[in-house]
């Protein structure tokens, strides 16, 4: 199919309007995957209800050695992935192969995400057993290196303090029982 010009806003991954020449990618539905001929990139739109965003990240990440990858949400129910190959060798067939691989990786990542949730207990048990079995109990040297001090890290918001530590010390030292209420309610 010859390239056609469209007004962007729908097609572009960027929230600005400009004109791009897009063409379909052989074997892919036109409204889901397109080739932006001028910018030599593939634009893939996804139904957000089909793919968990974790799968989108996982699948997109697989391509970052070969492509510049941009994620977008052009509409509330739409996710968009733009792949720009780092090397322009291979032309359109190479981009088509990338889109195909992306499509497969997306399905794989989405299904894997579901399996991981379903089998979480089993996977965690095996992982725990494998790692704990390999690591063994900490040695005295490991314990010696461990930082047990109270001030191991900065905690300006007092998140690691207990309720008593955080609020009780604000009470007057001679306050009667029941009078040492915090100045503000804990969250």
């Amino acid at each position, binding site marked *: 199919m010859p390239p056609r010009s469209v007004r962007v806003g729908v097609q572009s991954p960027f929230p600005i309007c400009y004109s791009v020449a897009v063409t379909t990618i052989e074997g892919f539905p036109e409204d889901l995957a397109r080739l932006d001929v001028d910018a030599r990139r593939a634009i893939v739109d996804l139904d957000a209800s089909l793919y968990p965003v974790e799968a989108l990240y*996982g699948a997109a*990440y*697989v*391509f970052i*050695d*070969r492509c510049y990858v941009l994620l977008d949400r052009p509409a509330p129910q739409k996710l968009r992935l733009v792949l720009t190959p780092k090397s322009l060798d291979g032309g359109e067939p190479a981009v088509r192969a990338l889109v195909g691989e992306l499509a*497969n*990786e997306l399905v*794989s*990542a989405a*299904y*894997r995400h579901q*399996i*991981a949730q379903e*089998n979480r207990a*089993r*996977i965690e048990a*095996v*992982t725990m*057993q*494998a*790692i*704990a*079995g*390999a*690591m*063994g109990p*900490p*040695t005295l*040297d*490991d314990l010696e290196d461990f930082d047990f001090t109270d001030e191991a890290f900065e905690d300006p918001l007092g998140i690691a303090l207990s309720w008593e530590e955080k609020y009780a010390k604000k009470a007057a030292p001679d306050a009667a029982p029941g009078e040492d209420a915090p100045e503000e309610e804990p969250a």
Partner: protein
Amino acid sequence: MTAGSLVALRDRLDRASPAFFRFRRLGPDRTLVTNLEGRWLVLSDADFEAYVTGAVARSSALYERLSDANFLRASWSEAKARDMIAKRKTFLGYGPNLHVFVVTLRCNETCVYCHASRADMDATHTDMTPEIAEKAVDLAFMSTSPTITLEFQGGEPLVRFDLVKHIIEYAEAKNETAKKTVELTMVSNLSLMDDDKLAYLLDHRVQICTSIDGPKDLHDKQRKLPSYSAYDAATRWIATINEAYAARGLDPTLYHVEALVTVTRAALERPKELVDTYAALGCRAMFLRPIDPFGFAGKTAKLVEYPRADYLRFYAEATDHILELNRGGTQILERYAAILLTKILRGEDPNFLDLRSPAGAGVSMLAYSYDGGVYTCDEGRMLAAQGDDTFRLGDVFTSTYRDLVGHPTVRAMVIASNLDSQPDCVDCTYNPYCGIQTTHNHKTQGSIFGRMRESSVCAVHKGIQDYLFGKLADGDPHVLEAFERWNTIRPREHFLHAPDDG
């Protein structure tokens, strides 16, 4: 439906409905079913239909078979399933037992697919120092595994035989207090072997492993030495070493040089010749490994690679020929088959690190590179040689043992290689016996999880298991008898340096 017929249906379902199972068609009128713990049956179409519809009569032989193998809800035994799973997973709970020492990258041989990313003989900067070697041994002895194997690799380890000796003696001294069971293994092209080195290796009970790629013309075409035949060098020493074992009173069926094949495109055409070469050399086992994408093989892939369907045809032809030789009295086995049959027929896992779930990289194996870098596995080290440090865990100078085996990369690999976390594998009939390689996924598909439908490793594993279950279903008594022999694990006790050895 009346209340009476509902009760009848409930009773029937309770009595004969299936417990959890996976299935795969093996061919006309035969379907393989496996259950959670890896028990299996091959059913005819009629039996399979009766099974899945809950219509197996209680008095039938089929009911008995299904019930014995824990395939029915009514008689499902949690204890039976649990015990077998525990037996299959005994490797969990122990730290790395395989420790690979890359004592140098230097090698005098040049192989078309070199997996090790070799260096020229003058590249002395790729030699491990004694200090690095000692620190690596110290880490190996910190493993929670009571048994450890130190494997010397390269490059060609005989180039730095002085260092190999140093490591052996340092480890032997260390074991006087560490009290582990230690195995020592060397992977060598054997061309730099001499009588003194061999005497030392025999005295210190070091197992020797080499590569033979097929008949002489094929081997020499793929593995080149500067001025003489690599095949002649290797085969001469195989014969000498095997004779030396026999002279020391060791059973030749158990003690012999192990040789590995790397199946290249050229080898695919000659499966029988390949097997005959091994048999003529007196080898008792051959491991028909397909070529992989690590090391130089990635760069020369166009020359040596092939579709996996071609490999599987080769595998079937070669293994059929091995079985024919077995029938004639020549005892030789195929290693892939032996590993899988041990799982299928014995319900045990021989702990082959690339073919188990989760895989062994990092938790059951560590690789120490010549420069002190520590990797999850040998393939991780090879990828690093090509500029990809994904599988580097640390180094022998600054990393503690627990830093290495508890590394986030190791955890991620354990999760990714757990077949219960993988699409396809989670539903695959071969799930109880199979394994995947995260380094291979990373190299070929860009993520450690990979996609099994497009993975050449999965294609090979599936194809080999189809072949083996096909043979088991055929039921030829000679083949079944050979398979029984192949899966029998006989420990090579002579090579075990026991805790109390002086």
